[in-house]
Each structure stands twice: as C-alpha cells, then as structure tokens.
C-alpha cells in the first residue's frame, strides 16, 4: 500500500505539490489523473525517494522508499521511458538493472518475453520507438516481480494493441493482490483501466474514489413527469432520498436534473408517489468531463475518501 500524507514540494515560491494526502490500496488499479504540471510526476518521484519532500511523508507498506531492504523486489517503477542509454541494447539495459537488484539473468528473458520485445532484445535502444521504450521500461519495472507497481504515463506512445496489453497486465497484477498506481492523461483510457482514481490539480487533491463514484457525481438523471404540476412533489421526494435536484425552469415541462441517485431509485420514488413519468434517462458525461469539471471547479467533487477536498463534495441533498 502506498500512503501519501501531507506531501508538499516547493521550488522557491512555486508550490508543485500542496499538502497532498491519499492512499493507494492493493488489489486494484489506481489511476492518478491531473493536467500537465499538476504535480503527478513530482508526487511519484517523492514516493520513490528521488525528490525530497518539503513537508509530509510518502511511504510504501509503511516504509520510506530509501528504507526498503530490497527496493526492486518491493516496488517496480517506470518514470520515463527515455531513461535509457541509447547505445545500450535492451538486454544489456536490463542486465545492469538486474545486477543492481541481485536478480538472475533468467528473469531478464522472462520480462523480455512478457513485454513482447524479446525479438529486439539485442538491438540498441536508440533505434526503439517510444512504444518499444515503454515496453522496455515496463520490463525493467517488472524485473523484481514487485508487490507495488508505480508507472508514470505508461500508455504514452503505445498502439491500441499495446494499450490493451498494458491494461490487461495492470489488471492482472491487481487481481494478484498487488498495488498498482498509474498516472495518465488519457482519461477515457484510464476509465477502462483503473478501478480507483486520484485526481489532482495544481498540486492539490481534487478527488479520490472509485471511477463509478466520481462519474456518479457528474452523471445527470433527466426526469420529466407526465404532469408538470407533479414536478415539485417529485423534486422534494428525490431530494429527501439524497438526490441533488435542479428544476428546469426554462420551460413549463417540469423537467428535473438529478445528481447522486441511480435511475432505479428515482423510478421507484416516482412510482411510490404515484407520479407518472414521460422521461427517465441517465446522461453520462464520462470521466473526461468529470475530470474537467473537477479541474475547473465547475462541479462539486466526488470523494469517497474523507481526506478529499473540497469537502462540499461530500454533501448531498437540497433543491436548487
């Protein structure tokens, strides 16, 4: 498990990471989402002990990275696929890594096969595409068969087959009970890969929770009673059930926009109140719109974690 607590990084006046707290649990792929410059890479570098935090702590299974007895067997990391010497072959790149970690040569062949670059193992990395470098970087991360996998933008440069391969790899690792923490700006792809999401903006935590939880707060349920006069009764009932209800006053249709309630619950409430419906439809804005809304503060953030800010994100109910 990765635990980030009050993590802060300042570069002079610039605050790159600002009092960031979250946890990454084992058994699930956790996506790390943020715009360019949001502080994702800096956070990951602090977790990995490459950069020292100005304040706060980042631990892996309760220990700082530098205190890990066998770091390569505990954490596999890929920060930048360009971090390879272009004049060295892929196999030799993995050889020095394996030597540093005290890992046998047999494992090098295994990860080369696993990542699909065995055919290019003896070619110089300078001739590799970005996608092949990503695969090599992932091979390096997997060398120690680690319990924690931490990858920064591993999908960059990969073709659709490569993206699918990474997705299946990460899910497979999570199913085995490992901790998988992956940053990406490919939000819709992350939606298909991650089960949990940590969203940051300007170095601050915006939201954390499952993908479904985050999306549920920007999903809008459109409800229109057959009789517009029943609109207020239905709105009150939905609000009492925990929905955030907006009445469409632009027309006389009595239409409602409801957040925070699944359609089944809303339909049941309408039935109990004897309100006939002419429309009941869920409008899903997707993770990308959810992220944009969170980044621009245009929607209250969803948050399953009490540490998430803004705290209003936790509030529900009320008719506006």
């Amino acid at each position, binding site marked *: 498990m990765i635990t980030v607590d009050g993590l802060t990084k300042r570069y002079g006046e610039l605050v790159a990471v600002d009092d960031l707290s979250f946890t990454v649990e084992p058994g699930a792929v956790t996506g790390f989402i943020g715009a360019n410059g949001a502080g994702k890479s800096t956070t990951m570098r602090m977790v990995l002990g490459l*950069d020292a935090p100005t304040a706060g702590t980042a631990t892996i299974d309760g220990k700082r990275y530098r205190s890990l007895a066998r770091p390569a067997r505990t954490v596999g990391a890929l920060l930048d696929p360009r971090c390879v010497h272009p004049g*060295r072959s892929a196999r030799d790149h993995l050889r020095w890594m394996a030597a540093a970690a005290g890992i046998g040569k047999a494992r090098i062949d295994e990860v080369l096969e696993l990542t699909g670059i065995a055919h290019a193992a003896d070619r110089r990395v300078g001739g590799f595409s970005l996608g092949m470098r990503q695969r090599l970087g992932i091979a390096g991360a997997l060398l120690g068969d680690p319990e924690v996998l931490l990858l920064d933008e591993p999908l960059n440069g990969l073709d659709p087959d490569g993206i699918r391969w990474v997705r299946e790899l990460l899910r497979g690792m999570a199913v085995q009970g490992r901790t998988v923490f992956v940053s990406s700006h490919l939000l819709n792809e992350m939606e298909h890969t991650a089960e949990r999401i940590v969203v940051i903006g300007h170095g601050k935590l915006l939201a954390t929770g499952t993908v479904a939880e985050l999306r549920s707060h920007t999903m809008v349920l459109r409800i229109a009673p057959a009789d517009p006069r029943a609109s207020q009764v239905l709105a009150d009932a939905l609000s009492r059930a925990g929905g955030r209800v907006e009445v469409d006053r632009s027309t006389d249709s009595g239409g409602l926009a409801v957040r925070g309630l699944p359609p089944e619950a809303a339909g049941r409430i309408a039935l109990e109140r004897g309100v006939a419906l002419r429309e009941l439809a869920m409008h899903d804005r997707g993770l990308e719109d959810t992220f944009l809304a969170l980044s621009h503060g245009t929607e209250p953030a969803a948050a399953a974690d009490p540490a998430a800010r803004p705290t209003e994100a936790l509030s529900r109910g009320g008719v506006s």
Partner: protein
Amino acid sequence: MITTVRSEMVKATTVRSVPTLAIVAVGAAVLLAAVFVLSLPITQGRTIADMPPSDVVGAALVGIDVAAVVLIVLGSLVAGAEYPTGTIAPTYLLTPHRERVVVAKAVVVVAIAIVVAIVAAVLCAAIGQGALLLAGRDAVPVDGRLLRTLAGTATGPVVYAVAGLVIAVITRSTGGGVAGALALLLVPGIVGWIDALGFLAPLLPSAAVHGLAGVSQPGTAEYLAAAPAALLLIGWIMAPVGIAAWRAGARDV
C-alpha cells in the same frame, strides 16, 4: 555493495564509449611516447646514444599523461552520461543508498584506469627501452627502481580519472567533469610558476604520483617520500569520492 559494483561494471562495459576510450588511452600513450622519444634529439640537442638511459625511458613515460587525459574523459563519462540519458533515476531507484552508487562507480573507474595505466606504462617504457637498444645502448635494467617508477607513474591517470568522475557527479555533467579534472591536471604547472603558491606543491596529486614513482628529488618543493605520497594519493581518491557521495545523496535527482 558488490551488486552495485557489478551493475556499474555492466554499465561501463555495455556501451561503446568506455571500452573505446580505454583502448584509445593506451594507443595515445604509446603514440605520444614514440613522438617524445623520436623528438629527443631535437628537444634535447643530443642523440639518444648520448643521453642517460633513464632520461630516455623517463621521456617515453610522459606518454602516460595523455592516457590520463583520455581517462579523465572516461571517468567523467561513467558518471556524467547518466544525467542526459536519464539513467540516473533508475540507478537510484535500484540502489536508493546513493553513496553506494558513487563508490561503485569509483571502484569501476579505478579498476579500468589501473589496467589501462599499467598497460600504457609498460608499453611506454618498452618504447623507451627499444629506442635505447636501437641506438646501441643497453636498456635500463628491469629492477625494483624501474618497476616503482612504472607503478608510481601509473597512479597518475587513476587519480585524475577519479577526479573526472567525482566532478561529473557534482556538476551532473560529463563536460564539467572533464573541465574540472583537466584544471586539476594543470594546477601543478601553475603552482610551479608562482613562487607564493609553492607551499601547495606537496599537497597536490602530482606530488603523490611523483613521490610514489620515486622521481621527485629530496629538497624540491613537491618532494614526498613513498609512504606520505601513498597516503596523499589515497586521500585524493577517498575525500573527493566522499564529497561526491554526500552531494549525490543530498540532492533531488
């Protein structure tokens, strides 16, 4: 620590630049030794047959200095290449105790430099001996004195290669390492020109090298006996490596 040294040795031997520089260092030393010996009649105004044999071999051993320059580049590359290629990040991820990485790099550079410098010293001396034989003179006897001269002279490239490595770690640049170590190589000459700096002469790496080689004369500014020369040489390797290790551990990558 052994795994880190092994890893650094794999790194050094799996790129073309390091083995190439090692070969170039030997070749350049031999070439320069030949040039020095062949030009002795011009520079000294005497034929080789008229010169003391030890002076001829001594002139040939100046070729070692060019090996030192090439090994400075090698030492600087071993550390400096990690920064532009970005391999320093996975290196520190695999070995979070960064001081071990710096020490391991120093061990690798010392090992390579010792082999290169000894081979270069032997070949340079052979050129001097060959020139003597061709001039109809007896070769310098291969005795303890000659061996001490060869071994002592060979320590010079080692200490300067380590200096290149250390400065490259501190400056995070191959160019910085090369420039800094070349400056160190030039310091003895500057100190020799300025009388007020004469007190520095016995503290410089060159004094340690000359003391170990037994080529400095008692009573001269830089003279050191073998034992203090050995201590000084060890100090010139250990202290900078320690400083570089501390700096590597204290900074963000």
